[in-house]
């Protein structure tokens, strides 16, 4: 059906164009021979093609444009005709002899245009006559196009101030009256389309109407172009008249479109000075009109206007733009109880944007907006509608974007209250936005109060909300979120240790509620922050006032201890162990032996009780050894205990090679270069020998199990340790021992049972090269190495 319809339409259009062009041809011939009578006859016939009812507005437009072009020709002809002595008044009458009204009126407008140009009658009289006569076309489409033609030919002939057609003192009023009348009639026709024809065509009609809307809106554009329309006139005549028409037409499409037009075509200054009138019309619109978009656009425009220049801001204050918008919005919301949440939020979002632009110094306004929004949302529970949540995110993002500073947003007491209405995922998104904003702007939060407020905002990320379906969480997203939280924690900083400590305390309080999944992400940054503070304190005299309440490293360590402890609940023993060791090292630097010892103890306990995987054990053990080696705060006893334990753990590793490596690593525990009291050559050697034994055992085991002794790698590694201590001057490590080891290795390498291992060969070769090199160096080192034979 539909297809036939459009095919038919094409046919009708083609026929219309053909008819039009044929008559246009005859018309041209008449024009060329200056035959007025024929010109009128054929032009009327040509214009008769526009009488069709068979075309949709879109196609009708095509036909209209062709006729329009022809009428331009005709107008020139009429002008020439008057120059040849034909009275324009006679012409004006002559064209009215046409029997059909539509061609008659097109011709009348065309001659009217020449009439005005001739200035034989005041422009206002001719225009008034034309706009009055056009009432004869009551068919919406034809009427709209005819009046659009009238508007087109008259727009440069309005009796505007400064125009050559300017009339007497009321000349602008005349111009405005004309345009207003044409606008009113066009709008009436346009609205009428909606009510004609069967109800089932409603959709098509609305589409057609929207195709025609620009014809109506153009009038407003013309109005805005009239020079003589100053603010006063706009306020007293133009706007009230236009709005009267808009409100009274009671048509959804027209009201929405025209409100938009008004906002777009007239200058911002005018809007600002007529806010009362404009906003007063909004609640009077049909309930189905999307007032929120209208208002939003108005606010957006004015926001941009405000942003354009600081000089205009006083105007906003003068007209109390904010309070006017604010009350208009609440009126609209009241008037439309069925407005969906998304609408409400959009309105407030626009108002907020407006406020931020115009009254950037008035945080209380922004807070007021948020408060009003909360009030409207209250009782609705979490918002389910995704568009509404999107709008809330926009609403909440606005202050962040404006101030580039979360600190300001934190002052808005209603901010978190609005966030509460977001569903959980969106809440998280919003929190993410906040953090992103901070990252981008390198915002520093420097008081615990603000931290408190901030964490209140992003609590969606910090802990599980009640009833969160945790299983649905995407692991990657979760990590992303938590990483951003971690980054955030790093950004909380205050130079004052006291304040910083408070911040840390606050952060700690919040992150500890985060549950086992979050702690591994949030605890490390907190620990690092704290350690940073510790280091800062080291630079100062410790506790200069002897004040108990002052922040001391000790206090921080206590806090850290408790914090890391929470990881056991996760459990994340490896992480906790690392953190303990870090703390221990920091404590070492702060000369707090008991604290350091305590941390080590915790680490050992974790090692013993929690870390059972052998690979983890190796890593952990090496960490312990490495850290312990650097500790210098311990007394002999404590150190003994700890090193003893460490060597003990080494020997208890599962795999022989691992044991071997751990044991020779332990040798370093007895030899700390900078501390003479920590050089125990004997025990170093003991360790190394023990390592050799284990290596040997490992080979034998391998031999027994696989028939080959495996690599000599371990031996070479031990050789290197020997060389290290030899060089460091450990008296227990002597040439003989080294010589023996080298020979052992050589023998092993030549043994049939040894598996060839290129890596081991290379390692050995370079080790031997090193010895050679040291020998050739001469001097003390060279002498020392001299006895070693390779």
């Amino acid at each position, binding site marked *: 059906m539909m297809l036939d319809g459009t095919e038919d339409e094409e046919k009708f259009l083609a026929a219309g164009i053909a008819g039009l062009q044929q008559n246009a041809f005859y018309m041209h011939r008449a024009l060329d021979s200056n035959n007025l009578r024929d010109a009128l006859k054929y032009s009327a016939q040509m214009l008769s093609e526009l009488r069709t009812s068979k075309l949709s507005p879109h196609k009708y437009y095509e036909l209209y444009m062709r006729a329009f072009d022809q009428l331009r020709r005709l107008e020139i002809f009429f002008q020439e005709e008057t120059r040849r002595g034909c009275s324009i008044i006679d012409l004006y009458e002559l064209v009215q002899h046409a029997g*059909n009204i539509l061609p008659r009126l097109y011709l009348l407008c065309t001659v009217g245009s020449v009439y005005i140009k001739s200035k034989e009658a005041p422009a206002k009289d001719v225009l008034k006559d034309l706009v009055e006569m056009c009432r*004869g076309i009551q068919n919406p489409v034809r009427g709209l196009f005819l009046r659009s033609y009238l508007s087109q030919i008259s727009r440069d002939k309005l009796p505007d101030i400064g125009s050559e057609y300017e009339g007497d003192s009321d000349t602008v009023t005349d111009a405005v009256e004309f345009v207003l009348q044409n606008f009113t009639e066009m709008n*009436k026709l346009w609205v009428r389309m909606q009510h004609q024809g069967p109800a089932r065509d409603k959709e098509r009609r609305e589409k057609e109407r929207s195709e025609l809307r620009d014809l109506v809106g153009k009038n407003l554009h013309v109005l805005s172009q009239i020079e003589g329309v100053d603010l006063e006139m706009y306020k007293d005549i133009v706007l009230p008249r236009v709005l009267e028409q808009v409100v009274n037409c009671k048509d959804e499409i027209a009201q929405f479109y025209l409100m938009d037009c008004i906002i777009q075509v007239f200058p911002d200054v005018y809007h600002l000075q007529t806010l009362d009138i404009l906003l007063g019309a909004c609640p009077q619109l049909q309930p189905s009109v999307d007032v929120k978009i209208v208002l939003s656009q108005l606010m957006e425009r004015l926001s941009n206007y405000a942003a354009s220049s600081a000089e205009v801001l006083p105007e906003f204050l003068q007209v109390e733009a904010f309070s006017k918008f604010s009350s208009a919005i609440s009126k609209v919301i009241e008037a439309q109880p069925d407005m969906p949440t998304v609408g409400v939020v959009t309105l407030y979002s626009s108002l907020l944007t407006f406020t931020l632009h115009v009254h950037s110094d008035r945080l209380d306004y922004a807070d007021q907006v948020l408060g009003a929004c909360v009030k409207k949302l209250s009782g609705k529970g979490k918002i389910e509608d995704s568009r509404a949540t999107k709008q809330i995110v926009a609403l909440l993002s606005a202050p962040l974007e404006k101030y580039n500073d979360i600190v300001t947003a934190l002052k808005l007491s209603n901010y978190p209250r609005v966030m509460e209405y977001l569903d959980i995922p969106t809440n998280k998104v919003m929190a993410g936005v906040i953090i992103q904003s901070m990252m981008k702007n390198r915002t520093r939060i420097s008081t615990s109060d603000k931290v408190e407020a901030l964490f209140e905002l992003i609590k969606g990320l910090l802990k599980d909300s009640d009833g969160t379906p945790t299983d649905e969480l995407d692991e990657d997203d979760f990590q992303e979120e938590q990483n951003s939280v971690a980054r955030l924690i790093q950004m909380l900083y205050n130079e004052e240790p006291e304040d910083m400590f408070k911040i840390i305390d606050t952060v700690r309080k919040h992150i500890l509620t985060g549950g086992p999944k979050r702690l591994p992400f949030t605890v490390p940054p907190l620990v690092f922050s704290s350690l940073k503070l510790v280091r800062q304190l080291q630079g100062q005299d410790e506790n200069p006032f002897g004040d108990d309440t002052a922040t001391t490293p000790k206090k921080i360590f206590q806090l850290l201890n408790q914090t890391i402890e929470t990881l056991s609940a996760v459990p994340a023993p490896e992480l906790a162990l690392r953190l303990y060791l870090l703390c221990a090292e920091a404590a070492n630097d702060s000369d707090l032996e008991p604290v350091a010892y305590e941390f080590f103890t915790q680490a050992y306990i974790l090692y013993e009780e929690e870390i059972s995987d052998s690979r983890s054990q190796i890593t952990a053990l090496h960490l312990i050894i490495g850290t312990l080696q650097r500790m210098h705060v311990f007394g002999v006893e404590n150190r003994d205990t700890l090193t003893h334990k460490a060597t003990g753990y080494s020997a208890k590793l599962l795999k022989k090679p691992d044991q071997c490596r751990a044991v020779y690593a332990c040798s370093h525990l007895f030899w700390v270069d900078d501390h003479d009291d920590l050089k125990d050559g004997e025990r170093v050697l003991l360790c190394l020998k023990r390592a050799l034994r284990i290596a040997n055992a490992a080979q034998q085991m391998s031999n027994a199990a696989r028939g080959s002794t495996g690599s000599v790698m371990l031996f070479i590694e031990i050789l290197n340790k020997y060389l290290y201590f030899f060089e460091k001057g450990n008296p227990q490590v002597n040439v003989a021992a080294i010589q023996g080891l080298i020979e052992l290795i050589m023998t092993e390498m030549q043994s049939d049972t040894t598996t060839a291992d290129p890596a081991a060969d290379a390692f050995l070769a370079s080790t031997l090269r090193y010895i050679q090199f040291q020998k050739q160096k001469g001097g003390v080192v060279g002498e020392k190495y001299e006895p070693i034979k390779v």
Partner: protein
Amino acid sequence: MNFLAGAFKPPCKISISLADGGARKKVPLKKENGQSVMVPLFHSQENIVGEVIIEPLYGKKVEHNGVKIELLGQIELYFDRGNFYDFTSLVRELDVPGDLYERKTYPFEFSTVEMPYESYNGVNIRLRYVLKVTISRNFVPNIVEYLDFVIIYSVVGVRNYSPPPAINNSIKMEVGIEDCLHIEFEYSKSKYHLKDVIIGKIYFLLVRIKIKNMELEIRRRESTGSGTNTYVETETLAKFELMDGAPVRGESIPIRLFLSPYELTPTYRNINNKFSVKYFLNLVLVDDEDRRYFKQQEFQLYRLLENP
């Protein structure tokens, strides 16, 4: 052939010419055969002066029983063909019986002739004025020549006729079909001259039908005879579209109809007890299904003196 044909041809040529023939205004007149000829225009009580020239052919002798010229005002009713009613008949004898050998000129004059009616050419009726020259002959048919001329009345400027209407009320009326259509229309005047323009408006009080368009027609009604023999013929002289599309309640549509393009005559009342011509404005509304709703109103037409 020529010779033979010549035998039945009138033996002389008659031509009638008017004294101010060249200067006098001429107007078109439709003849029976449908062609228009230009004929001189007179007003009532003008002098009709001119001359008749009779020119025998080939020096032939024309024998006659006298030559006369008549001025006739005739009403011709087509359905009563052949019947002329002469309401005016004036005769001037031009020559006594005798023979004509050569071209001869006879001047004539009808002074301040009372010609009470305008010439009129309607569907059923013709009112015409004619100058008729007759050469009476014995045994053979008379030789006759006619000259048509046209009489019009101009109300203004001619003493004897009624001045422009002193009372000229507007025509205003509210009509409608109950619960369907209710309109109010107004024509600015009830009497218009022939080059006048009808100004008015139609106001829609109630519209419940789907109107497609609206037009104003000018209708002319000729009525002849009287009593049971009354014969009425109506023709539509103008169709002027006033509105395109369907109006809604409260719309007011302007009327501006120029009368000059149409071939109108003044309203004639009971001309010589033979006929009347009346004019009507017919307002027609056409609905979607081509039903016509109309209201007819008589209006009067009169003639203004042109170029007084």
